[in-house]
């Protein structure tokens, strides 16, 4: 005779709130659509140490698995995380098949070398942007899974960026060149941030913001359709990462005003690094700035023309940075003399 289970069913009375009937919107059933009833209540402080999905019934005897250091909403939250995550899902692309590699033709040696040096540098940079968010994901309570999901999408995006630049370096008779070490873990670098917002201000707003400007100018330095596609697709991803940083900083500024001065200090630091810093491809580091100037000018013999375009890119980096920081709610630093950005813009226009 087959065994029969003695059912207790007590758990049916201990489940989360009942009656949730989320409906798909015109973009499908998005994360925003399932913020229904209690499931849309995001706690200001999370006491969830068991990895319980937000809104599920709690078991008093459940093991504490989470050594989460990020348990305050203002430390990581942003209003549009659901949107950014869904967009990341919709805009997944493949460097193997979405980049027309066959469009690459042999280039003059100086241009190919510049392309390969820049690709080597960008591979290093993308390594940072993959490693660092991953570290913060495991430290964030699952009650804030929406921003965590955006960061997971970012880690995936960066893996793809890393791979597309490596592919470019090895696809056209060149190779990888010298690493710059520009992403070393020194005080003030993205790696060594002790706080999520500190990290985000460096990674998303300053670092990726500077790279985004360059990717957006990709048309100016691309020599074939493959490179154009590469920069365009990467720019699309970077724009989401930058938006994460801006929206998070805005949320932090609105909900934790006591931290504004501290955030301004991170921005001071970021601004000292934004152009001179070794993580900015258009910065002072010879490997990347010289390669960019060669690519922008059209060869070593037109280096000066390339430099003029490089300075134009720097201007644009500063203008876009300023807009982002204003949008995040820290615009007064540009009006009260705290930030050198205005002077930098004036110097670059001279």
């Amino acid at each position, binding site marked *: 005779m*087959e065994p029969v289970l003695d*059912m207790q069913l007590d758990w049916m009375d201990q489940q989360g709130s009942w009656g949730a009937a989320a409906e798909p919107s015109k973009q499908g059933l998005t994360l925003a659509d*399932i913020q229904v009833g209690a499931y849309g209540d995001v706690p200001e402080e999370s006491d969830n140490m068991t990895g319980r999905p937000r809104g599920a019934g709690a078991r008093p005897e459940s093991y504490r698995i989470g050594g989460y250091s990020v348990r305050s909403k203002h430390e990581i939250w942003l209003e549009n995380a659901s949107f950014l995550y869904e967009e990341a899902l919709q805009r997944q692309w493949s460097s193997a*098949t979405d980049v027309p590699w066959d469009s690459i033709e042999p280039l003059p040696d100086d241009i190919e070398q510049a392309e390969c040096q820049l690709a080597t540098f960008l591979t290093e940079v993308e390594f940072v942007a993959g490693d660092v968010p*991953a570290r913060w*994901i495991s430290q964030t309570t699952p009650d804030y899974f929406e921003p965590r999901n955006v960061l997971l999408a970012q880690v995936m995006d960066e893996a793809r960026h890393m791979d597309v630049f490596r592919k470019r370096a090895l696809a*056209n008779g060149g190779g990888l060149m010298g690493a710059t070490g520009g992403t070393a873990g020194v005080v003030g670098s993205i790696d060594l941030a002790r706080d999520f917002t500190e990290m985000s201000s460096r990674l998303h707003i300053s670092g990726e913001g500077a790279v985004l400007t360059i990717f957006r100018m990709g048309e100016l330095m691309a020599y074939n359709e493959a490179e154009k596609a590469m920069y365009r697709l990467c720019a699309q991803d970077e724009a989401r990462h930058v938006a994460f940083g801006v929206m998070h900083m805005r949320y932090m500024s609105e909900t934790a005003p006591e931290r504004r001065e501290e955030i301004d200090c991170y921005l001071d630091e970021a601004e000292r690094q934004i152009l001179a810093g070794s993580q900015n491809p258009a910065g002072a580091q010879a490997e990347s700035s010289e390669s960019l100037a060669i690519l922008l000018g059209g060869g070593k013999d037109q*280096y000066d023309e390339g430099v003029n375009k490089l300075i134009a890119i720097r201007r644009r980096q500063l203008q876009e940075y300023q807009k982002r920081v204003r949008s995040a709610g820290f615009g007064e630093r540009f009006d009260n003399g705290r930030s050198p950005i205005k002077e*930098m813009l004036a110097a670059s226009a001279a």
Partner: protein
Amino acid sequence: MVKTAAKTDSKTKSKKTTARDTVASAAEVPKPGYHWMNRSNQWDTRVKPGKHGLRLGDLNVGIYGEIPEQWQDQTRNPRGAIPRKGVPPLGYSIRDKADVWADSAADLYEEAIQRKWAPATDVPWGTVKPLSEPLERAICQVLTELCQYANCDVETISQWQHQMSYGYHEVKQYLATASFDAARMHEAFRKRALCNGGGLGLEGPGEVNRMILESRGGWSEAVTYLMLMRGTFTMTLLRYLEKFAYNDAEQSIYANALQAKARQMTYALEHLQYSIAHDEERKAIMATLLFIGDRIWEREMADHVLREALCIVFAGGLEKAPDQGYAIYQKMQRDFMRDYVGTCEWLGIKRDPAMLPEAMADYLEAS
């Protein structure tokens, strides 16, 4: 006209001059030295796309495909590039190939990218129709525990990923897709739980999650618990749930989740095999880990909540859950034990039934 940087004496630099330097940096570009030119470990590399495009694995040509047994470089030097001297290390703790490698990592990465899906739009949510309350409660309970499994995947992988050195970037890249897959599963399971008049269930006991997250002995230990043990069970569970799905939406969710899990299992088995092949003692360590893990596993499986919920799902409701549903549940556990022990033995780890916890041994014997 190119503006050149003014020379400064670093010893006399004050705060003021530093600020001035920052401002000046916007307009200055040093005269080119081109010292970086003509520096490559291997030039003339021309990798061509194949019929599946230009894949990550295609790049492993010449020195770029030389994957060292140990990677001492703790910077972000891309494999094959010329390292720069004097760069402060970042403290990567996983620097041995045997601790992380699987030959298929590059292919799994490309496959994960090709098989993209978005739960918002690729799941036919319109096919979800009202179900009896006990059945809906049971489905929601199972999905809640699956959300926790996915969360455990996310937290485990992301806590190790950044500790892996860049000599083995293919693995890091595959794992980036694996943690993203887990996020997508978490999302899809949650969406299903909240779209049909139900809600989330009661959280799981969490003892196995704790065991996985507390794998301090290295990434291979985490892979043993997260992928070999929990992964085999999750695959079995998803296969059954796909078979007993109540609509196309559920079927689609479970089928997509199965694909991601299958990639994870491929990586895991290949990695563990590679690891054992390079250090025989690892086999004994894994046997010890599994001996301990089995007892924790059995305790968690004794929890009546998931068992009862699955019996209801498999029986289509409460009425036949205690007999018909339970019979299917037991078959699922037998399948799991067969696959789990079979995989261990494929890896060369003998599992003596007499050393297994009683319930697991019974399922194995009946399988």
